């Protein structure tokens, strides 16, 4: 019995990254609430990070670049999550809803 | 699940039901809390989960038959309640009590008070999350229970006082045992002090928590250690001396702060004062009868209403008797101290955190069957 060494091919990582990206995009459009959108956004970022890491592993001459970038993405994502969530809470306080459409309608 | 906290979308508060079965309510008190996060917006105690119809039974039973009920109202200081009821009936029926019996009453009541305070101490620290002091306190309490059991025959719900006296006399082993116990407790008190009172965690949890002002205590009719913790120098034993309390030299511990720590300190100091009273009573104990010469067989108070208050472990316990001259009460009103003390919980806990409110509740020293009666 034998099995392909999946972990060793770049294309698989890229496909997974694309899948995460696609799912994330689908979620971003599909979700109604801000928190749902934020979650989908995190998925998109994760897809991008996987791409960085994969290129870093297989292609780049300097294998630290991708890791450093991913670290930065993590930092940004954490900051983004914190800010977005506090905005969501502020919005919730004002509109009693975290539904994006409700907020749009209630404008003004 | 989702929406768990939102009964009303326009409110950020939610309702939390504390009890009727909750470890911190010492029985079956239920408190409806309106909470904003962990802050209490409004608190409403819901009583009656152990309403046992004592007042109704007082009308159905003869004067003597009501005696066992007293011990079951406040099972922690049963003898104080016995005392209050017996003294009220004696006042109504004009029964004289021999001096030795009064001394025995004082000794046993004060022992009972110490045991009640010890249990409160343990249970209070248990509320705050410390388990071991409870067992140490129980250890000391067992000694008192042994002493009282040797006199009264029961461990908890004593039925020892009779109209005009007490049920049976004490012997020398009780006196030596009591003296030994006091010696032992005097040694243990510094240990409690070091283990609990001086503990920084406890101080942080009690200092400035649950303040009750003098005026608030007055408006709600709070008595006992709750009032004394708020700077009110009120103790029925000094205020309207009953029995033979006027013959003893003891102090009323009063703390001005009004916070939970003050109530805690009042009770801890009261243990010492009770020990002083017992020592003096044992020294002065007169010889003589423990029942009136002419045995009280049938109690029939004159028509009219009578009031008698005693200082129970939790405050002023009053008995209002309305007699129509028969061998049972026409109306028996039992004024229990914790009922009034608890009624201020709603106002006092407003704006507090949940754990602080529980510290406040513990510092009120609740005995639910006494509240519900």
């Amino acid at each position, binding site marked *: *019995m*034998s*099995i*392909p*060494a999946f*972990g060793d091919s770049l*294309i*698989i*990582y*890229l496909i*997974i990254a*694309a*899948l*995460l*990206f696609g*799912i994330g*995009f*689908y979620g971003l*459009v*599909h*979700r109604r*609430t801000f928190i*749902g959108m934020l*979650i*989908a956004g*995190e*998925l998109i970022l994760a897809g991008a990070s996987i791409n960085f*890491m994969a290129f*870093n592993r297989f*292609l780049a*001459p*300097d*294998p*630290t670049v991708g*890791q*450093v970038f*991913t670290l930065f993405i*993590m930092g940004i994502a*954490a*900051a983004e*999550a*914190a800010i977005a*969530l*506090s*905005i*969501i*809470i*502020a*919005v*919730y*306080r*004002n509109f009693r809803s*975290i539904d994006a459409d409700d907020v749009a309608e209630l404008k003004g | *699940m*989702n929406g768990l*906290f*939102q009964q009303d*979308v326009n409110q950020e508060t939610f309702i939390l039901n504390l009890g009727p079965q909750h470890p911190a309510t010492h029985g079956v008190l239920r408190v409806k809390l309106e909470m904003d*996060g962990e802050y*209490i917006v409004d608190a409403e105690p819901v009583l009656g989960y152990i309403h046992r119809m004592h007042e109704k039974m007082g009308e159905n039973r003869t004067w003597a038959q009501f005696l066992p009920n007293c011990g079951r109202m406040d099972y922690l200081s049963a003898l104080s309640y016995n005392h209050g009821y017996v003294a009220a009936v004696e006042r109504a029926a004009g029964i004289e009590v021999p001096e030795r019996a009064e001394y025995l009453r004082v000794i046993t009541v004060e022992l009972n008070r110490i045991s009640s305070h010890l249990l409160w101490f343990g249970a209070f620290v248990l509320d705050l999350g410390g388990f071991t002091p409870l067992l140490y306190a129980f250890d000391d309490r067992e000694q008192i229970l042994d002493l009282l059991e040797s006199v009264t025959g029961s461990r908890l719900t004593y039925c020892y006082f009779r109209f005009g006296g007490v049920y049976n006399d004490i012997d020398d082993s009780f006196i030596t045992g009591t003296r030994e116990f006091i010696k032992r407790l005097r040694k243990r008190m510094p240990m409690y002090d070091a283990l609990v009172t001086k503990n920084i965690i406890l101080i942080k949890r009690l200092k400035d928590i649950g303040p009750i002002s003098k005026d608030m205590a007055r408006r709600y009719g709070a008595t006992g250690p709750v009032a004394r913790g708020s700077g009110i120098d009120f103790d029925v034993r000094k205020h309207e001396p009953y029995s033979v309390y006027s013959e003893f030299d003891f102090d009323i511990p009063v703390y001005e702060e009004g916070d939970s720590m003050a109530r805690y300190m009042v009770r801890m100091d009261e243990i010492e004062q009770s020990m002083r009273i017992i020592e003096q009573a044992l020294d002065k104990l007169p010889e003589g009868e423990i029942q009136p010469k002419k045995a009280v067989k049938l109690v029939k108070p004159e028509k009219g209403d009578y009031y008698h208050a005693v200082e129970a472990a939790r405050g002023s316990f009053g008995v209002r008797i309305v007699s129509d001259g028969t061998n049972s009460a026409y109306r028996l009103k039992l004024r229990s101290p914790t009922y009034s003390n608890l009624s201020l919980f709603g106002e006092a806990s407003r704006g507090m955190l949940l754990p602080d409110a529980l510290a406040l509740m513990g510092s009120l020293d609740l005995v639910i069957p006494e509240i519900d009666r």
Partner: protein
Amino acid sequence: MVPLFSAEGLSSLVFIFIVITTVLGAVIATHSERLIRAVTGLAICFIGVAGLYYYLNSPFLALMEMLIYVGAVCVTIVFAVMLADPNPKSEVGKGSIFTGPLSFSLGILLFWGLSALAGKTAWIPSSGTINDGSLEEVGRSLLTNYSMAFELISLVLLLAIIGALVLARRGRTQTGGES
């Protein structure tokens, strides 16, 4: 191809498992009706992604992924769900044209396009590497080549903390209680 019952074969099996975890987590994250489950899905997905990083020879980043995403971001989101999710009514699907099939097909389209791109491109592996990409090297480059970005990130995080505090605290006092 490697034999199944060897270290490589087993690791390949585990890899499949990790991929499934990742994708499953992502699907739960976008498709569940309840937000709280979506967050759980997100956490599962991130655990999977951490596994992928491990396979990409970077255990350090795998652990950082766990620490930051699972331990911090997901927890924050759960908190937000607690604070601001009034109604458990259906989360997905409603009148807008972008919902349902359209968004799904858009997602499929993106996925297809990207993976086709990935498949079509002739990736040229680098001839030699400058360093081995180990933890020490990452640290070194963080403090040399990318020190500016490193500092900026810390600044961004600081601002994020302050901004989040300012935003979330406002309007809190009127309900009382907060000290």
